[in-house]
């Protein structure tokens, strides 16, 4: 199975929350889910890697010199 959707490149930010009606009552940001679902599996995995790297950079940046 290869999910492919061409319309949403990975570098496109998720839509503004106010543009997505129907705010969920469970506290989950459905706009993020819809954005991720619009990506291919490759793009999703790359997004995760970028997230990990960003977190690690922030962590390392907070270490005392």
């Amino acid at each position, binding site marked *: *199975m*290869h999910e492919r959707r061409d319309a949403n490149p990975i570098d496109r930010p998720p839509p503004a929350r106010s543009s997505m009606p129907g705010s969920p009552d469970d506290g989950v940001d459905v706009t993020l*889910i819809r954005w991720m*679902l619009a990506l291919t599996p490759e793009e*999703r*995995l790359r997004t995760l*890697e970028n997230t990990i790297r960003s977190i690690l950079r922030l962590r390392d940046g907070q270490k005392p010199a």
Partner: protein
Amino acid sequence: MDRNQPDLFHLLQVLAEHHVDFIVIDGVGAVLQGAPIATFDLDVVHSREPANLERLLMALTELGAYYREHAEKRLTPAMPHLAGPGHHLLMTQAGPLDLLGVVTKGRGYADLLPAAIDLQIRPGLSAKVLDLAMIITLKEELGGEKDLAALPVLRRTLRERR
């Protein structure tokens, strides 16, 4: 390769190139199916068939895998360990890799196979991934704080996929 910079593609590629039978579960499995969550390691359930363990061991050697909890000793996984039902928390040249002999209710590779999907991650790289509904079931059964915290996002993702 920097161990502090996980390379999930490389981990999956090496396992695939060695024809290891495994199923991606947990966080990375959920992300591949569209869940916007963060995780730092790749969790897989591996087949414990002897021939597969040989292939797995070759892949782990290529990845320079060793047990994270014994980092100073660089204790490397061996066939008898991998043949058991336990969990192997490894560090590799491409980041953390958790190998699970079984998951909740003693489910091993063969038990989970019917709930796995073949996913093409990118051209030339495919993997079996546990479907999102089953990932949710496992997290419900585990019931840990981290697992329960992820459930609303996973359930909502499942609903949005349908």
